[in-house]
């Protein structure tokens, strides 16, 4: 007989293929010695086979149209309209960028550069556990005043609490033509977003959302008045877009 008594849980683990290899022999020996228990387990095995025989046919049925439609369209219409609006922007932005290509120098347009710099700064500071920011959110007033002074214009840290992200803090960074600011946000599961801000070239006053992706890192970037912005995160495109919309809306009330 087995040294450890076989429990009811062991029998079900055996049936469901979840019993450790070393324990299997014990259960087999127990079942050989207890035909009534073996019969009970055989009946349970028949239940599983019966369930599959009865319901596996559902897998072969064509998916009803109303269900297929759910995954093709966003569930809420306002969200759809917002996505469509920004998608339009993206097309316009991409077309403008492509047209500008022949005119400008071979170096990437400055708006593309900001996305690269932002993604790089994101990748450097987001994994930081002890020093993710220079100035923490509890000194937000000081942080904002300091960064505004260095960037030469009023910079604010937008609220993303409605999107589930709270401000961690910020830091000053070297940009391609002067100082840049990085605000870091975090949600309850520890995922982080960064908002990268720097002065825009004076000739470039456009306002367009553009999107780029490098591996799992997604960036929405745009130019708005005196600053260029890039919101970066390793979250899905939709929530990142919602956050970018929120940032934009707070600077354009």
């Amino acid at each position, binding site marked *: 007989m087995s040294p450890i008594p076989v429990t009811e849980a062991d029998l079900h683990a055996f049936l469901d293929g979840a019993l450790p290899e070393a324990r299997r022999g014990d259960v087999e020996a127990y079942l050989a010695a207890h035909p009534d228990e073996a019969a009970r387990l055989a009946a349970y095995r028949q239940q599983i086979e019966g369930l599959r025989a009865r*319901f596996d046919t*559902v897998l072969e*049925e064509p998916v009803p149209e109303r269900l297929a439609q759910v*995954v*093709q369209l*966003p*569930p809420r219409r306002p969200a759809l309209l917002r996505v469509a609006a920004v998608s339009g922007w993206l097309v316009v932005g991409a077309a403008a960028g492509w047209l500008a290509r022949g005119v400008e120098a071979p170096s990437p347009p400055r708006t593309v550069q900001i996305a690269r710099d932002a993604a790089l700064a994101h990748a450097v500071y987001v994994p930081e556990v002890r020093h993710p920011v220079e100035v923490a959110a509890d000194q937000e007033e000081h942080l904002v005043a300091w960064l505004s002074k260095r960037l030469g214009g009023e910079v604010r840290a937008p609220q993303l609490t409605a999107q589930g992200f709270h401000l961690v803090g910020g830091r000053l960074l070297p940009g391609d033509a002067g100082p840049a600011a990085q605000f870091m946000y975090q949600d309850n*599961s520890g995922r982080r977003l960064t908002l990268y801000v720097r002065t825009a070239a004076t000739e470039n006053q456009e306002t367009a959302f553009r999107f780029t992706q490098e591996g799992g890192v997604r960036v929405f970037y745009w130019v708005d008045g005196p600053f260029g912005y890039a919101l970066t995160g390793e*979250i*899905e495109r939709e929530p990142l877009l919602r956050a970018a919309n929120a940032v934009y809306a707070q600077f354009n009330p």
Partner: protein
Amino acid sequence: MDDLGALIAPQIPRLRRYARALTGERGRADDLVQDTLERALGRFHLWRRGSDLRAWLFTIMHNLFVNQVRTADPLADGADLDTVTVAARGGPADVTDLLDLDAALRRLPDEHREVLLLVGLEQLSHQEAAAVLGVPLGTVMSRLSRARERLRRLMAGEPAPSVSLRVVK
């Protein structure tokens, strides 16, 4: 939105299979699937990429199902399994005819049917089933044990057990 839909779409047949077995009605099952898909898309940012998408969808479906049952039958809210068991024993469930699988499934308490289907039909591990149902592993094991024995007796035309099964660890 396309990539979210593309991730979730392949899961629909299995969600439908589980919902059909759970509710026993095609229309109600597809309503439950539709609610599940809509909620999943609305809360997709809560899904941790890399974690099991199917288990997450089953969790959403379980929560919707439980809420629907509570709404449909206020008495079910707060009624523990022992109460349900006693009621079933004295009620029409206590027939000695052989029941087919569909009818026997209908006679199981919801908690029993859920765990039986998640493990037996959907082949979730006991741990995954515990996560989907939001209960400890030990609860899954005891429910699974009782559900299987109850279903066996229903289908064999035996009366419900008068004594509790052996205690599970």
